[in-house]
């Protein structure tokens, strides 16, 4: 895996771990607070429902008393008129069933068919509970819960009617069925509930089925469902609400589904995923940024090393860091310098050997190199060609060693002042090939060797050793040929003076397109003209040859010296 991705992944894993932990804690706290809120809300609903139930019972007591007022002064015979009047009162007081007992005899009864129909809610006289019977017999009011014949529970409220005579004992009982309808009117939306007495469920809403009373647990199926709400236990709250005279404690129980918890879970997960997405993006950005910061010098080092391996000896990396990577870069540069200097020392040695054998001075080598580089600059400026630093280095090497093959030529032939015979001529024609072979053996300088091999090929194909023409000849070779010829023409020899520069330039122009590349000639003439016009020499500080001999005046020195750091 690439280092960049290792960085990204390590950041990603760290941030994901942090987000997961923080998200889990946040979700836990969110759910807990929501659960508490739900519980509080249910408790609040329970308070309201309990209050409403108490109100309903209070209303029933009030209705009982009102009906008792009516019944006390009325003769109730169970006839049509009495029944009609009782039904008018039922409608007025919204009581479901009213009964009047005279002694042990039921004098009259009336009920609304919707809820109090049938014999199921009749009041047995006296009630089976002895304490209630005692209260009633004692003339007090009494309230109790009764299970009817059909299993339906009802709430009974009894009062002794005012006596018309000392012997008269008449009681009035009103009944409210304890069924789901009672709860339906007071339950909040989305909540199911039950009226319970101890562990017994008296009524539920919704009614589980027409045949069964059901229990609160069975009602869970009726709870509204929300997203993820089924993951949470329904909330249940119970509260004892009222105690009747028979000792029955009526409790109200409410149950609601954890819809808000489900919603909170959704919100929490959404937030979690949002943070996760943000964290992933952050991890990628941070990891990528850090990787870029670390990888830039490493990549440069890698590229530099690869370039060095391919023979690019001019590689030098920017040293703009002050950390370990900066030290590594400096060490690399130092290593690259040493390798380069080793090469340069070898080149220098070869150049020295050539000088020792030929009549050429070291100034010639130096001038040729400078002019070649200057000519290459002009060509670059005109946009005709683009040299990399490595190509420029190879050009310098080739310019310095363009005649290194002369090592293999006899000194008498090299320095012969008269015309060469055919044997001598053939021998001298071998020196480009010999020079190329020598440079090739140095390694990493194959291109320089090829330039040297072609440095005596003429543009029209009349050169040697292979008779290449035009574009077949490397541009660098064409430049070296023109510059070498110009310098040979203008160079002063111990035994003769060089030709004037104008004349040499005219000669170059005359031979452009034949011996020389017109482009190279034109660029060289521009170089020469510029030097003439500005009355300045080409910088003596430039050029590889000069770099090999720092601190020495080229004109005063007759020999090519190895660079100082090599000598050291």
């Amino acid at each position, binding site marked *: 895996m690439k280092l960049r991705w290792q960085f990204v992944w390590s950041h990603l894993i760290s941030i994901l771990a942090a987000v997961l932990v923080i998200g889990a804690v946040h979700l836990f706290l969110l759910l807990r607070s929501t659960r508490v809120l739900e519980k509080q809300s249910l408790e609040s609903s329970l308070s309201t429902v309990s209050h409403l139930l108490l109100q309903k019972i209070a209303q029933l007591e009030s209705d009982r008393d009102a009906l008792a007022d009516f019944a006390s002064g009325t003769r109730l015979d169970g006839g049509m008129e009495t029944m009609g009047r009782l039904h*008018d009162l039922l409608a007025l007081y919204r009581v479901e069933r009213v009964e009047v007992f005279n002694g042990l005899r039921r004098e009259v009864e*009336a009920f609304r068919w919707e809820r109090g129909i049938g*014999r199921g809610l009749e009041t047995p006289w006296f009630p089976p509970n002895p304490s209630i019977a005692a209260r009633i017999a004692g003339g007090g009011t009494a309230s109790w819960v009764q299970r009817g014949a059909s299993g339906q529970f009802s709430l009974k409220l009894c009062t002794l009617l005012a006596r018309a005579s000392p012997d008269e004992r008449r009681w009035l009982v009103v009944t409210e069925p304890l069924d789901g309808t009672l709860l339906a009117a007071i339950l909040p939306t989305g909540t199911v509930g039950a009226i319970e007495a101890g562990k017994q469920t008296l009524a539920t809403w919704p009614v589980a089925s027409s045949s069964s009373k059901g229990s609160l647990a069975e009602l869970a199926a009726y709870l509204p469902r929300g997203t993820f709400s089924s993951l949470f236990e329904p909330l249940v709250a119970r509260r004892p609400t009222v105690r009747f005279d028979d000792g029955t404690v009526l409790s109200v129980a409410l149950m609601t589904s954890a819809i808000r918890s489900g919603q909170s879970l959704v919100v929490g997960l959404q937030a979690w995923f949002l943070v996760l997405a943000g964290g992933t993006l952050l991890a990628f950005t941070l990891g990528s940024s850090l990787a870029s910061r670390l990888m830039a010098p490493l990549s440069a080092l890698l590229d530099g090393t690869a370039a060095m391996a391919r023979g690019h000896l001019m590689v030098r990396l920017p040293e703009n860091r002050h950390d370990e990577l900066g030290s590594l870069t400096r060490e690399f540069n130092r290593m690259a310098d040493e390798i380069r200097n080793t090469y340069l020392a070898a080149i220098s040695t070869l150049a020295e050997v050539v000088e020792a054998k030929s009549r050429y001075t070291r100034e010639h080598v130096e001038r040729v190199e400078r002019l070649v580089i200057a000519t290459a600059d002009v060509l670059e400026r005109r946009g005709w060609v683009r040299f990399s630093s490595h190509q420029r280095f190879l050009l310098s090497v080739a310019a310095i060693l363009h005649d290194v093959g002369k090592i293999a030529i006899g000194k008498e032939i090299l320095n012969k002042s008269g015309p060469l015979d055919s044997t001598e001529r053939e021998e001298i024609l071998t020196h480009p090939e010999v020079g190329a072979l020598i440079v090739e053996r140095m390694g990493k300088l194959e291109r320089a060797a090829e330039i040297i091999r072609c440095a005596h090929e003429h543009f029209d194909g009349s050169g040697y050793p292979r008779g290449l023409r035009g574009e077949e000849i490397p541009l660098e070779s064409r430049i070296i040929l023109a510059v070498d010829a110009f310098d040979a023409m203008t160079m002063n020899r111990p035994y003769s003076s060089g030709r004037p520069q104008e004349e040499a330039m005219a000669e170059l122009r005359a031979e452009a397109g034949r011996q020389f590349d017109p482009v190279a000639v034109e660029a060289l003439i521009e170089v020469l003209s510029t030097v003439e016009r500005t009355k300045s020499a080409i910088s003596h500080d430039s050029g590889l040859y000069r770099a090999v001999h720092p601190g020495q005046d080229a004109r005063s020195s007759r020999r090519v010296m190895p660079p100082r750091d090599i000598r050291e």
Partner: protein
Amino acid sequence: MVGTFWGGQASQALQRELIRISRDLGPVSIEVRTFGMAALNDYLSRPQPLAGRESLDLAIVPHHWLGQLAQREVIGELPSERAQFLRQKLVGQALLAVSDGERVFGYPISAEVLALVYDPTIFPYPPRTIDEILSTRFQEGVLPLALDISSPQALAPLVGSLQGGLIDADGSLVWRPKAVVETLERLRAAWGSSDGWRAFRGSDLESLQVQLYSSGKLASFVAGPWLLQALEEAGRPFAVMPIPGFSGAPGRARALVGYQCVVISRESRWGDLALEVGAQLLQEDSSDRINRATRRLPVLLSAYESKQGLTSAGSFGFLRALEQGQFVPGTPHWTEELQKAEQQLEGFASHAQPPKLTRDAFLSNGDRP
């Protein structure tokens, strides 16, 4: 929110069914709110004030309200695909009851019709006419017949038999005072003294009639199928038959057939959901459960094909009444005429004592409380 005037077990059954439906439809909370009939009509018809009054999404109403509700733009027309769904599932009359031409305004969920409940131990065979009931000798303190004198639906078969029909060619209610007065005149023997008058009028009349019947103080009365459970629990034998006409009446007595319909309020914020809830109430299972609980008659073709929910003797009697009954159009004009008739009868029934039976007395307002 669903508005209904159903109470007691009918309301419970509706709530249970809506809970089932809401669970199938997803996280939907459906609340049932119970109103009196007049209050429901008022709630539906009035524009909702800005605050403090929630709009109803659905309501369960008698089908003869539909015309006026549509005219007042309280309810809208059902989409064509829903109407097509109804055409495939309903008996023909039920669909006609909620339609105006091609336009369908609600989902009919149950049928209802008034019939005569009588004591088979008193009447060894079904009485052929009202006069036969009234001329039967009863014990002291036993009323031969009771019906809600303030209800045009209860009197309509008798008035219609005297008039020779109840609906004219335009589909309007024919309610001639002369025929109404004659009907009341011929019924006078039923309430006899002032004691019996309460069994024909007043609040909680159905409860009173059931209790009088169950205690042997009433020999027959006009009732709807929703009283079947009460009669079954009362413990006294009973039989049900179509309301007979008067002897010598030119026409047959035909009870008005009504339907309970689910309508969708135009103010509903969840119109599509409300439409779906209405359609769900018409599914075979839902419809059967509601009809069993409310003891009303089915409207689905499949229920009649399978005889589902029609097996009890009482149901059979009401079914016969339904078959012989008079279909009521749900047009605005019909509703208007019916309301006029209702006002007249309420005026008459508001008298605390039986009024004189003259045309003028009938048209007066009586002594309303």
